[in-house]
C-alpha cells in the first residue's frame, strides 16, 4: 500500500510539473490554412462582434504600415502579415504580431527587386505567406521571396524577377507559395515569363524549375495527398496538372480550360477545380489524365476559391451569391444572396462560414443544414480582400490597413 501511495504521489507530481493538459492546436500556415483547406480545427470563434475598432469580441486591432491583400498566418503564438508601402509600392514589409496582445514583436523591411505595378484594388503584398513551422516564406507581387526564421532572422532572399526580369504582371500577381517537405513551391505565371519552382527551404537554392504557360495567372498551388505522398497541383488557363513537389515531375493532368483566379481544393476523394463552372476530378489518377467525376456550370466561383466542408462545396459566385453544391453529384442544392463582391476566400469553423466582402462587410453564415442562413453581418469599416485565419477559436482578419483578432473574452480566474 505504501508503494502504491508513493507511485500515486509521483504521478501527481509529474502531472503538476507538466502543467495543465495541453490541447494540440493547429497553426494556420498559409493561404487557406495550408493543409487545413479553409476549415479550422478546434473551438468556434464568435459569430458576431462589434463594428468598429473595439468592443464586443474584438480582442485587438493593430494597424500595419502600408497596404495588403494577403492573408495572415499564425504559427505558435505569433501572427505574421505582409504589406507593401511607398508611392512606388516598392517597400515590402513582414511583421510579426504577438497573437495574444497584437503588439508588434518584430518587423523587417525590404526593397522590391521586381515590378511593383498593380491594380488599385490590389497590393504588392498580395500572396499570403507560408510557413513550415520553423520559418516564414513571404512572396510578393514583385516576385521577391523572403525566408525569415520565426524570430525575424533572415535565412535567405530571392529576387525571382531579378533572376528573370520579364517575370512580372502589371495588374499584379497573387499566387501564394506552399511548403512541402523542405521545398517552397512558387507559381510565377505571366505573359512574358512563366515558371514554377521548388526552392530549398534551408538554403534558398532552386531544386527544380519548370516552364509554365505564357499567360497571366493568379491561382495558388494546392497540396494534396495522393497514394500516400504529397502532390502539388498547378492550375492555369490551359488546365490543371499534378506534380511531384520534390522534383517538379508532372504526374497527371486535366487539360481543359480552367479559371485563373480561384484555386483548386481537394477532398479525400476528389479535386475540385473551377473549370466549366466547377469540375470534380477523381483523386487517384489512373495514368496521366485525370478522370472527370462531374461538372456543374452553376457552381462557377467568382474570384474567391471554393470551400469544401463535410459533403458540401461552398462557392461564392461572381454576383455575391453563395451556392451550395453536393460534393458527390455536383448538384446545386441551394443559393443564398450575400453582399458582394468577394475576393477573400471564406473560411469555416464549426457550422459557420465566415465571408468578407471587398467593402469590409463580414457575413457569418450558418451552414449546419442545406438551408444556409446569415446569422450576423458586421461592418468592419475597412476593405477586406484577404482570406482570414482561424486558430483555436480566434479569428484573425486582415483588412488592407490593419489586423484584427476576434475572440471571446477570456474568463477571469475564480
Amino acid at each position, binding site marked *: 500500500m505504501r508503494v502504491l501511495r508513493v507511485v500515486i504521489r509521483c504521478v501527481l507530481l509529474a502531472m503538476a510539473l507538466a502543467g495543465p493538459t495541453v490541447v494540440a492546436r493547429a497553426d494556420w500556415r498559409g493561404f487557406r490554412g495550408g493543409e487545413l483547406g479553409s476549415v479550422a480545427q478546434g473551438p468556434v470563434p464568435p459569430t458576431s462582434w462589434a463594428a468598429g475598432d473595439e468592443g464586443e469580441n474584438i480582442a485587438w486591432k493593430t494597424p500595419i504600415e502600408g497596404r495588403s491583400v494577403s492573408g495572415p498566418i499564425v504559427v505558435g503564438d505569433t501572427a505574421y502579415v505582409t504589406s507593401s508601402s*511607398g*508611392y*512606388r509600392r516598392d517597400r515590402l514589409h513582414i511583421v510579426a504580431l504577438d497573437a495574444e496582445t497584437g503588439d508588434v514583436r*518584430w518587423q*523587417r*523591411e*525590404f*526593397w522590391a*527587386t521586381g515590378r511593383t*505595378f*498593380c*491594380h488599385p484594388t490590389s497590393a504588392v503584398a498580395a500572396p499570403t505567406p507560408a510557413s513550415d513551422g520553423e520559418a516564414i516564406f513571404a512572396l510578393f507581387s514583385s516576385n*521577391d521571396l*523572403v525566408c525569415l526564421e520565426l524570430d*525575424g*532572422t*533572415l*535565412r*535567405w*532572399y*530571392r*529576387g525571382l524577377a*531579378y*533572376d528573370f526580369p*520579364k517575370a512580372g*504582371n*502589371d*495588374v499584379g500577381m497573387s499566387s501564394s507559395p506552399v511548403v512541402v517537405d523542405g521545398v517552397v513551391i512558387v507559381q510565377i505565371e*505571366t*505573359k*512574358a515569363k512563366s515558371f514554377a519552382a521548388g*526552392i*530549398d527551404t534551408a*538554403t*534558398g*537554392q*532552386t531544386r527544380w524549375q519548370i516552364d509554365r504557360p505564357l499567360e*497571366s495567372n493568379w491561382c495558388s498551388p494546392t497540396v494534396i495527398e495522393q497514394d500516400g505522398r504529397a502532390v502539388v497541383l498547378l492550375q492555369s488557363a490551359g488546365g490543371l496538372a499534378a506534380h511531384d513537389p520534390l522534383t517538379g515531375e508532372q504526374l497527371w493532368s486535366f487539360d481543359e480550360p480552367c479559371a485563373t483566379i480561384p484555386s483548386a481544393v481537394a477532398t479525400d476523394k476528389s479535386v475540385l477545380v473551377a473549370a466549366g463552372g466547377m469540375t470534380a476530378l477523381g483523386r487517384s489518377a489512373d495514368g496521366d489524365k485525370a478522370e472527370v467525376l462531374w461538372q456543374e456550370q452553376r457552381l462557377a466561383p467568382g474570384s474567391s476559391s471554393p470551400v469544401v466542408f463535410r459533403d458540401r462545396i461552398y462557392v461564392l459566385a461572381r454576383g455575391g451569391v453563395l451556392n451550395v453544391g453536393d460534393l458527390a453529384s455536383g448538384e446545386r442544392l441551394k443559393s443564398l444572396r450575400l453582399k458582394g463582391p468577394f475576393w477573400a476566400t471564406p473560411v469555416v469553423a464549426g457550422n459557420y462560414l465566415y465571408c468578407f466582402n471587398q467593402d469590409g462587410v463580414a457575413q457569418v453564415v450558418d451552414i449546419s443544414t442545406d438551408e444556409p442562413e446569415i446569422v450576423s453581418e458586421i461592418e468592419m469599416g475597412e476593405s477586406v480582400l484577404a482570406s482570414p485565419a482561424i486558430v483555436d477559436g480566434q479569428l484573425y482578419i486582415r483588412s488592407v490597413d490593419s489586423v484584427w483578432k476576434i475572440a471571446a473574452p477570456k474568463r477571469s480566474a475564480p
Partner: protein
Amino acid sequence: MPKSHSRHLAMLWATAAAGLGAVIFVRVGLADADEPDDTAAAIQQIRSVGTEGAGSEAATDAWRQLTRGGVDQLPSLLVALDDANPLAANYLRSAIDAIAAQHGDALSTDVFADFLAERTHAPRARRLAYEWLVRLDPTTPDRLLPTMLDDPSVELRRDAVARVMERAAGHEDAGESAEAKQAYRVALSGAIDRDQVDAIAAALDKLGTPVDLARHFGFIQRWKLIGPFDNVGGVGFAAEYPPEKQIDFAARYDGKDGEVGWIDHVSEETYGNIDLYQAIKRENGTVAYAATQFLAAEPRDVEIRYGTVNATKIWLNGELLDSNEVYHANDEMDQYIVRGHMKQGENTIVLKVCQNEQEESWAQVWKFQLRVCDETGTAVLSADRPDTGSVAQNSALRGRLN
C-alpha cells in the same frame, strides 16, 4: 588562414609575452563580431550574393554575424549599400534595421546624419538613414526637408515637396493668392511624382497659372508615325519591318493594308499620349512605329520611360534597348524604364507598338506615351523644344512640322 584569425593570434602572442591576461584578449578577439575585418568580410560575403540563390548560405551566415555585432558596424553597412546589387542591398538594409532596433539606446544620430548629408550615397540608403534619424530626432523633418526639394532620393524629395504643398495650401486657405502661387511654384520645381504634380498643377491652374504638364514631365509630343504593318496572329512582334532596319522619313513601304509612309503627329493630350487608332487606323492585329528626333545639348545618360498596354520594342540611335511582348496588362506612366546614352546633337528614338487581336472591350486600345528624364524622373528636354504654354506650344510644334 583568414586574415582576421591571424590578427587574433598575433594579438594573443603579444598579450602572452606582455603577461597581461591573455585569456581576456583571446575572448575578445574570437567573439568580437564588431571587429572591422570581420565586418568587412561579412559585408563582402553579402555583396557576393547573386542570382538564383548563389551565395545565399554564406550571406545568411554573414547576416547572422553582423546582427550579433554592435552599432559601430553601421557606417560600413550604410556605405556598402552604395553599389550593392539589389539582393545584397536587402541583406544589408535588414541587417542595419536589426542592429539599430537592438541597440536603440546606443544609437548616435551622427552616423545617420553624416551619411545622409553626403548626396553621392545611394538614394535609398540615404532614405534609410533619414528614417532612423527621424526616429532618433523628431526635429529632423523640420531641419532637413527644406533643403531636399532637389534631393537625388525621390522619397526624400517627395516629403520635401509635400511640406511646401502644405504651406501653399495654407496660404490659399487664408486667401493669400500671391504667396500660395509662389509656394506652389517652389513645390513644382521639385515635384516628380504624378500625384503631387497633378495636385500642384490643379492648384496653380485655379490661381490662374496653367502648367504645361507634358513639358514638366518631359513627354515627347512631336512624332513621326508609320503603319499599320501586319500583326495578325502575333507575327508582327518578331517581324523586322523596314523601319527597324533604316529610318528614312521619305520612304514608303508595303504595309498591312497597302502602301504606308511616315506621317507627322503632335500629341495635344496632357500627358503626351498618342492614340494610334486615331493617328493611324482603328484596326487590330497591327504594328506601328513611332520615331522622334531628340536634340541633346551635351552627351549624357538618360532614362526613357514609356507606358503602353501594347507589346513594344524600343531603340535609341539604332540600339535595341528593350522589348516586351505583353499585351493589355495595365497602363501606367513610366511602366517601362530603359537607360541609354545620348550623344550630343540629334538622337533618334524609335518605338514599335504592336496591337493584338483580343476582342474584349478593355483590349481595344493601341496607344503609348513616352518621356525622357534623368534617374529621378526629372524631365530632360530636347534642346529645340519650344518654351511656351501647352496650347501655344502645340500650335508652335504644329507650325514647325508644317
